[in-house]
């Protein structure tokens, strides 16, 4: 069960603003989904190694050679606020 405080905490971690309605709905829906998912915690998984990736590739390396990358103006072309050759953002302190 995810209560209102937990929903707001997770939303803060995810940098996601939610309306009051969404907080209510999220609390009910996530609790419902988690109730179902909880069942895997009943399995005996002692000593089972976790799988983060199914293919057996370790340390895929290539030679470290410089090559052309995206031109500056192309990389900035989709930015909401290109600024002095970089990505402009609001000040962390402004409000």
């Amino acid at each position: 069960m995810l209560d209102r405080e937990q929903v707001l905490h997770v939303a803060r971690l995810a940098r996601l603003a939610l309306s009051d309605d969404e907080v209510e709905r999220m609390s009910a829906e996530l609790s419902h989904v988690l109730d179902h998912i909880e069942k895997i915690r009943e399995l005996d998984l002692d000593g089972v190694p976790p799988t983060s990736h199914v293919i057996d590739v370790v340390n895929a390396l290539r030679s470290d050679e410089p090559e052309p990358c995206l031109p500056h103006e192309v990389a900035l072309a989709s930015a909401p606020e290109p600024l002095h050759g970089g990505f402009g953002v609001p000040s962390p302190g402004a409000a």
Partner: protein
Amino acid sequence: MSELIDLTAAAAAERIRAREIDHAELFEAYRERAASDDLNAFVWVADAPPNGNGYADAALAGVPIAVKDLFCTEGVPSQSGSKILEGYRPPYTATVVEKLAEAGAPLLGKTNQDEFAMGSSNENSAFGPVLNPWDRARVPGGSSGGSAAAVAAGLAPWAIGTDTGGSIRQPAALCGIVGFKPTYGACSRYGMIAFASSLDQAGPLTRDVTDAALLLRHMVGHDRRDSTSLEYPGEIAVPRAESLNGIRLGIPGELVGTDAGVDQGVRANFDATLRLAETLGATVEPCQLPHASHALSAYYLIAPAEASANLARFDGVRYGLRVDGDADLTTMYSRTREVGFGAEVKRRIMLGTYALSSGYYDAYYGTAQKVRTKIAEDFAAAFERFDFIVTPTSPWTAFELNSKTADPLAMYLNDFCTVPMSLAGTPAISIPSGLADGLPVGFQLAGPAFSESRLLDAAYALERAIGFDGSAPRR
């Protein structure tokens, strides 16, 4: 023109190579159909055939392809079905799209999808839902619903999509076409707007098995820009098998048993297809995947966890939407994401962030990763006794629009039979196996890693025996 549309992609390529039809004529025929699409399958359509000679001698002969929106295509809108990427035109092209273009399949258009590939009905798109061409009151499945509907309706000769937990196979099943999810690592993920990186794979959606083989052959291979992509062993063969002699099919009770929730009509069709497989020489026996019934739970922790990390990049800084740019930085991030993401994407970001958060990581994400190990072991054990594991692709046929949107969990059950293979990283194909109450049913075959050619062969033999007629929605 209708005659052109009736050709499979492989047959059209053959006619172009024989100089019986012109590739530009074929492109234009499909371009006109795609541009007048009334299923909402396309979100962008090319306005002219590509320039250039040599198509008639290229492997794919200029037969144009529809591409799911989430594949980045240079200079062409690529939004992954999301409002947060409004107006985004990437400066580069996804590797598989580039490879297909080099093999002679030019871009016809971009297709609608569930936002960031999260969904099983295409109702989560910022562009609105796609309609199923068999019955326009029903969903085409998802998340590659636009690609599936476009191929089924003859608006495109063939298409590509992506499959994370069933997003190629399930819409292919619901639209009566073929869909193939390759072995994890067979195709480069470079340029695919990521959902869950340890699961996402590109694959074909086509009218028949031969078209799928032809397309897949030109998609696979190592890409230095995706370090999880692998050198494909050998070449994908053109399927030719006419029998299933000696093929052992395993039926996992955990996925198709009476408790699994498979609809009656789907079940009857599945049983009939098994009998047909037996007449072709296959043996059919029950098999066990003891942890498969837990796959959905593990998937709905792992995929949202990976998604919550992947989607952190959409924050109003480098591309797409920005909201409240005059506020402080954190408010700008949070408001941009509130306005830019749809309800299902928010739900999964929340679920994934929770599963990864301090105090819950081991209980949820860690446990799910262990279940994933057990599921992969289940498949490995089953493939010692069986060539392929078979199930219905989806527990039901295409459902009515809005009938499952109120209950996220009911929607997630769409993936019950497709998610286990995704977690195990094994290849699987869905082929149309007939109709139930007038709607297409999909039959899924899954094989061990890199068994693509054998899977295609078996699917081809079955396809011929089934004799499915997919022409009804191609008007």
